[in-house]
Structures are given as C-alpha cells and as structure tokens.
C-alpha cells in the first residue's frame, strides 16, 4: 500500500501534517530553518506586528511540570515587520515552507503588516486574533465577531496568499467567531491559542509572571483543543480546512486532532525542549505506524474520522 504523509490545507500541500506553532522556536530564521530541517511539514514565525515590541517583563515563560504544561506572557515581543523581513527573506531563500503569523492592535496595523510582507512567497499568513497576553483596547480582537469579519475581509482584498485565522478558546461561542472569519474570506481555521491562566506564589504572595496573567499551553489544554476542533468540524464539515493546536506531546495526540477534524496540526510546547529533533522523529514514526496499522493511505482519510 502506498502511504503518504503529505496533507492539503486548502490550496497548500505540505510534506506532513506537523507545523511549528507560532511563538515557540520561531523568533529567528535560524530556529525556524532548524525545525523545518528536523522534519516538520512547515513552520510558523513568532507573531509579527507593525512596531518593535519588547513584550512583557520576566518571568514570562515557565513550566508547570505536574500538568506537563507551560504558562507564558511573552506578550508579542517582536522586532516589527520591517526588521523581521530580513529573517523571512532568508527563509524564502532556503525554500522553507513558512507561515508568517501577524498581529495588530487594530485593523490598520494588521493591514500595514500585511502590505509590508505580502510580496514574499510565504505559504500563508496566520492572523493572530487571540493572544491573551496584551491589552488591545480592552478585550482581544478574537472575541468580537464584527471586528474579525472586517479585518479578514479587508486583508482578503489585499492578497491572494492564504489567510489563516487562529482562534482563541477564551470565548463563549467559537462558532460565531469562526463563522465571521469564514464570511470575511479566510482560508483556514486554526484552534486553539492558549487558555487564560495565572499562577501565584503563596510564599511571597505575588503573581509569578511579570505581566501577572498569562496563557496556558501544553498537555493540560489538549482535551480543550480537541473539543474546539471537533465542534468546528461538526459545524463546518469539510467546507474549510482546520488546523488543531494545543497540548500535542505524542504522535497519538496528532492522530486525535486529525480524527477530530484537523487537516494538520501545530505543535508548540512539546518542541520547546532540549531535543526537539527527537520529538519530531517520534511523532513521525508514530503517525506512520498508525497509518499502517489502520491502513490509511493518506492524512485526508484520517481527517474527521470520528465524525463518520
């Protein structure tokens, strides 16, 4: 039996369904290249905005070992698109399949970043409407369906490059937000970003994170991510490709997301370790083993399997 790990996400095809999630190992062209060479299907940059930002004060990332998770409040530290362009250009020269994650404080900033980078042959732009670690005029953009619709629609008019929308799990009704994004013309839905969270040190009676509040990623959020992808697939079926993110620590977790409805997955926390290359290898081995055992010839046959 012929077996291929390649997967189609809308018009894009990547060599396997494993994508580096934004913000983990994605600050420089060099880590992105490294992770692609490690065997991932594609890589996503750290979210890039209009201006240079130092992010939030430290502590801004630490592990919660007992629940195999991480809390972070990096807060979109980035050099701004003009400077980061240099890193992207190196990636393009290297033919690294790269998705650029972009964010803005408002519609204008999103537009500025997109305009500034849209000539580059990147695989897609992932719109980060969902970072819980900054205050942009109060709530996050990703909780407001109107705003989501408007931003996607305007960006859509400006580029043919696929637009992915990354959803936050911190909403009452993800279908409402997702529908707004789809209506605006996005190509792919990505779920989920981190869960709003916080950790307090009881000895000093202080929040540990410099920003006080943060976002939870890692194994703790996997059952939540699976639920979001399942709900989205239940609603949209195969009308729009889905990408699952959250708590992938094993090949089995990737399969779980695919069965729930994802065409690909993004992996963050579990690659933020000393030997990410080994992790990628284990993931790949496990996916192959599963496909062989269950006689799947392609990833698309697994996608949404639990709904059938």
């Amino acid at each position, binding site marked *: 039996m012929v077996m291929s790990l390649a997967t189609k996400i809308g018009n894009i095809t990547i060599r396997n369904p494993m994508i580096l999630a934004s913000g983990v190992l994605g600050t420089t062209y060099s880590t992105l290249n490294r992770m692609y060479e490690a065997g991932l299907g594609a890589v996503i940059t750290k979210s890039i905005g209009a201006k240079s930002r130092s992010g939030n004060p*430290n502590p*801004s990332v630490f592990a919660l070992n007992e629940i195999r998770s991480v809390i972070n409040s990096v807060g979109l*530290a980035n050099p701004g698109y003009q400077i980061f362009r240099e890193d992207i250009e190196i990636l393009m020269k290297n033919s690294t399949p790269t998705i650029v994650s972009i964010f803005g404080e408002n519609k204008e900033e999103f537009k500025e970043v997109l305009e500034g980078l849209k000539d580059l042959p990147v695989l897609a732009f992932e719109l980060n409407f969902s970072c819980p670690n900054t205050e942009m005029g109060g709530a996050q953009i990703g909780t407001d369906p109107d705003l989501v619709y408007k931003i996607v629609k305007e960006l859509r008019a400006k580029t043919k490059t696929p637009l992915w929308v990354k959803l936050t799990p911190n909403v009452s009704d993800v279908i409402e937000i997702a529908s707004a994004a789809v209506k605006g013309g996005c190509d792919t839905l990505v779920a989920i970003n981190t869960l709003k969270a916080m950790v307090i040190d009881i000895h000093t009676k202080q929040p540990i994170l410099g920003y006080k509040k943060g976002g939870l990623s890692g194994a703790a959020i996997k059952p939540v991510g699976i639920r979001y992808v399942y709900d989205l697939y239940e609603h949209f079926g195969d009308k729009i490709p889905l990408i699952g993110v959250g708590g992938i620590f094993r090949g089995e977790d990737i399969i779980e997301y695919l069965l729930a409805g994802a065409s690909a997955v993004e992996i963050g926390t579990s690659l933020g*370790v000393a030997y990410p290359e080994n992790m990628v290898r284990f993931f790949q081995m496990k996916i192959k083993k599963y496909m062989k055992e269950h006689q799947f010839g392609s990833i698309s046959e697994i996608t949404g399997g639990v709904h059938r």
Partner: protein
Amino acid sequence: MTNQTLLNDKPIMGVIVEKWEECFETYGFKIELPVKVQNAKPGQFIMLWVPGEDEYPIGIAGLKDSILEVGIAKMGPGTEAMHKKEVGDLVGIRGIYGKPFTPPEDVNHLLIGGGFGMTPLKLLTETLMSNENKQNIHVFEGARSKDRLMYLEWLRDLHDRGKIIFHACTDDGSYGYQGFPTVDLEMFLQETETPSVIYAAGPEKMMKAIFDLGKKFANVVDMQMSLADRYMRCGFGACSSCAVDPTGWRICVDGPIFNTEKLEKISDFGVYKRLETGEKKRI
C-alpha cells in the same frame, strides 16, 4: 527538605542564608532551597526570580546539598533588585538548565574570564581541583581595577597553596599586570608543550578575542565558552529568544557552553546578538 530534586517547573522559593560583597557592585549569595539539588555541573545555570521585579539567568558558582551559591554583578534594575535582598528574604529558582563544561583528562586547564563570567569558572575550578592534577589548573582573570576582580581572595589563596596558578590583570594596573588576560594566556600557550583546553566566560567580545587567539595554537585541543551574554526568557528551549545564527541553537539548552567545533558554526559569535524584541544588535 523533601526528596524532590529541582525540576523544570515554576520557581521554587529559596531563602537567602548568606550575603556578602564579593567585589565592586557584585554580591555573593547563598540560597537554601527546600529541595535537594543534584548533579549541578560547572557551566549550568538557573533562572533567578526576584519576586515582583525580574527573572534572569544566573550561573551556578557553588552547590552543596540544598545550598546554592551565586554571584551577581549589577547590570540594571533586575540585578540591583537582587542586591537589595537580605538574609532571610525569599527568591525563586528554576533549573537546573543548560549543558555544562566537559573537561577532558590529561590536559592543561586554562580558565579565563572576567566579570560575572567568573561564577561558572569558580565551580569549574573546584570541580577540577577535586578530580585532576592541580598543577595543570590555570585561572586567568581580568578586570578594570583590583576592586572588580571577582573571587580574588579565594583564587589568591588557592594559588598560594599551590592548588592552581592564578594569573590576574587589571586595566589600571591596580592588581596583577596591567592589560588584558589574553596577554598572559598567549604567553602561557607559547611556552607549554602539553595539550591545553581553554574554558572562557565573560563578555562576548573578550571571548571572541580568546577564540581567535586559541585557534592559532595547535596545542589548544578544545575551547569551551559560555555564551552567557545573551537575552533569555524561558531558559529551557521554548521561546528561542536566545537562539544563535545560522544553526538555530538555543544557548539555554544547546549551550550555554559551546566547544570549538560548535563555535566555528555560530556565525554571529562576537558579531551580533538578539535583543528581547528579536532585533539584532552589533556586539
């Protein structure tokens, strides 16, 4: 004290049990942890949380059971906040992180550093003394002036007792010879016949100079340098703030100690580093 060891986890709170002025604007601290700290090796580091203020990487200067020694040089608000801490105060520790120095057998051990780079070299000195022929341990330290030489008394005493050979120098000649520590290092390398390993920790510019110098000598069989002059957030490999080009190695997990072979591949070594924004900055 529980039987737990220090894991990659949220900060574990330790209490400062000793504080002393080590040298100009530099304090030493002993911090007692509620857990056993096993297997910390020279060159590894911890993330130090000064509650409500800042968190940053700090090298391990010493370790006995659950008592950790660090040396902290004033650089900005974060290190200043630590300098204000007193015996009895709590600070948070995450770690142990990073790859250590890996000294081979039967070589001259040439430790060279300056500033807070001396902290991992202190633990390395101790470790080498307990394992190897003492005659082969040379410590080269440089500073602006005598009052800025870290661990001066401790190193001088070891030298006097014949346990190490201590080469000190200052910019102003207030202690040792006047000039850079590379002067003595070069002299030593010209004279020695034995294979030598250089261990360096300090400002990256200085390390680059040492690296270029060391490459000229065939008897320098390895150089191991601590790239500790870079920005870090997580300390365990997640954020890539500390990554170097073009390899994508992260200093926190793939380093901070890199050997000659690896240093050759790091094109930004001594050239530029990344700021907290990810922007490059010339060194």
